Every structure is written in structure tokens, then in C-alpha cells.
């Protein structure tokens, strides 16, 4: 049943986000600390476990894949509700404060990536 997949996804979402909320409270941060990240890890582990036990049928997985496929449309909607007017109309200081860090971080990305290159064979080929 497709709802099983959606419910499994919802379970991971709820547990992960709650962990993030409580973690934030625990360390005194007024924000959700990595809730989505915890939810993703939980889904990966649970999916793997259920798959091994043979408890996942196609419709169940489709319940998750549906949201997987809805991802880009949702991102398009998200782009459409950003405060772009504020970004465009704000002064040069804001434009620089928002873009300089991006450039700086991009500059160190290849360095970090090379530094950490795993020695073992990787599942994804990285042609250079």
C-alpha cells in the first residue's frame, strides 16, 4: 500500500525533526539542529533494514518515491516565495556580505575535496 511508504517517510520526518528540536533546546540554540539530517539518516537505515527483511513491496516504495519526484517542483515553489525584492533592493553592503562568503567557500571546496579523497574505490566515478 502506498500509504505505508508515505507513513514510513512521515515517521522518519517526525522523529528526526523532534530530535533536532530537542537537541536545539538541550544546547540552548533557538533553532532546529539538524532535524532533517537525522530524519534522512533514519530513513536510509530503516529502508535498508526493511529491504533486507523483505518487508518492502513496490507500492510502499512508491509512496516514498512520489515525494522524491515532487522534490524539484517543491523547490520551484520555494524559489517563488523567497524575498527576492529585498535582495535586489538592498544596498551594496548586503549584496557583498551575501556573495563574498560564497566565493570564499567555493575557493576552498576543491582543496577540501582533494584533501579528503578516499583511497578506496568509490561507488561513484570521479573523472578528472
Amino acid at each position, binding site marked *: 500500500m502506498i500509504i505505508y511508504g508515505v507513513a514510513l517517510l512521515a515517521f522518519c520526518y517526525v522523529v528526526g525533526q523532534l530530535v533536532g528540536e530537542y537537541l536545539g533546546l538541550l544546547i540552548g540554540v533557538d533553532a532546529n539542529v539538524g532535524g532533517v539530517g537525522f530524519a534522512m539518516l533514519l530513513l536510509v537505515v530503516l529502508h535498508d533494514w526493511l529491504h533486507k527483511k523483505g518487508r518492502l513491496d513496490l507500492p510502499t516504495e512508491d509512496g516514498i518515491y512520489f515525494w522524491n519526484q515532487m522534490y524539484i517542483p517543491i523547490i*520551484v515553489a520555494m524559489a517563488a516565495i*523567497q524575498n527576492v525584492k529585498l535582495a535586489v533592493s538592498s544596498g551594496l553592503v548586503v549584496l557583498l556580505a551575501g556573495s563574498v562568503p560564497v566565493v570564499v567557500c567555493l575557493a576552498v571546496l576543491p582543496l577540501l575535496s582533494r584533501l579528503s579523497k578516499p583511497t578506496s574505490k568509490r561507488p561513484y566515478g570521479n573523472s578528472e
Partner: protein
Amino acid sequence: MEILNKFLDKNGLIFAFLVVGVIVYGSGLISKKLTNHKIPGSAIAIIIGLLLAYLGGLYSGGQKGLADVPLFSGFGLMGGAMFRDFAVVSTALGASLLVMRSTGWIGALSLLLGTLLSFLGGVGVALLWGYTDAVSLTTLGAGACTYIVGPVTGAAIGASSEVIALSIAAGVVKTIVVTIGTPFIAKYIGLNNPHTAMIFGGLMGTTSGVTAGLAATDPKLVPYGALTATFYTGLGCLMCPSVLYLLMRMAF
């Protein structure tokens, strides 16, 4: 007209599905006919979204882009944090636990480095603009992390509302720069594998920007970038008002 308005008010989310579907379809056509698939359809769709957000903001004077136009209020729900996070979590299904684990330590390092570098970049720009007090400098530096870290930090250390507003705007600019820029620079920085995507997410941090930028680059990379990026806001909110603020107070 009144019936139509009432109808759309009640069925906003469904209408948003329809409009986004049309945008994505149109973007696919533009990608194929005008750019010969050189620019991915999703990148075009996201840029159209940003353009609509700008027009919506101009029209309504509000802060939520297109969602402030009554006709398109459903965009607020469809593009809001709940659906976005739900869909982001679902992308984890295609991710390899093995890769995630092998990138673990460097992911953590990139998070730390990303927060520090963004903060310092923001502080540097603020200094150039003549801000010299530790509170304003810290708040603007925090805004350069993400538009959530900025106001959280500013409120915690008592920044003026003007500076807090600037820090939010800086964060929004960062999100947009990452969203639009990622597909275009991906080739040059080797952003074509999960390993680099995780580092990218940790360095950039803006969840909206990273997930949208990666979606436009290669949807397979989204779960990896999203995983590290979602820890960034928490780390920023933790470090900016505490350690980094103390350091700034010692320096200024």
C-alpha cells in the same frame, strides 16, 4: 471574478500544483529549444520561480514573494518548510550510506570551516562599510552564514533592528547566489560526485540554496548536500552568538 477568487482561496495548494507543473513544463521546452539542453530545465524553472518571487514582491510589497499575491497564496504552503523538508528527507532513499559514512569527518570539518569563513567574509564586508562595534559585526557575519543565523544571533546579543534586517537580507542574497550559481560553476569546482556534494553542503550551509542549486545541477547529489547543509544552521546558531561573538568582542 469573485467566485474565481473564492475558489482559488479555498484551493490554493492544488492551484499551486497546476501552476508549478506549467512552469516546469515550459522550462523543459525552453531548455530543449533555446539552450539545446545546455542549461537544465530544473535550473530554468528555479530561476523563473525567483523571477516570479521578485514580481510578486513588487506587486504586493510583502516579504514572501509570489505567495503574497492572493491568487498564488498556495505557493506559500507548497514551497514552505514543511513540504520542502518532507521532500528533502525522501531524497535520502537514493543515497548511499557508505558514501555518507566515508565523508563523515570531512563533512564535519567543512561545516566548521564553512561557518567560520562565511562569518569572517561577512565581518570583512561590514568592516569595509564602517561598522566597528562587535555586536553589529557579529550580526552581519552571522547573516552571511544564513538568514536564520543572522536574526537569531542579532536578537541574542542585542543588535539594532536595522542591523538585523541587513543580516537577513545578506542571508537571502547568499541563498539566491548559491541557487543560481551552483549549476554554472559545478563543472569548475568538481561538483559531480556525492563526496564533493557533502563538502559543498557543509561549506555553503544555506539549505534552501544548496538543495535548489544541487537540484538544478544533478538531483542525485541533493541528499548528500542536504544532509550536511541541514546541520549548518544549528552550528551557526550555536557558534555565532557565543564563541565568535566573544572573539569579536576581544578584537573590537
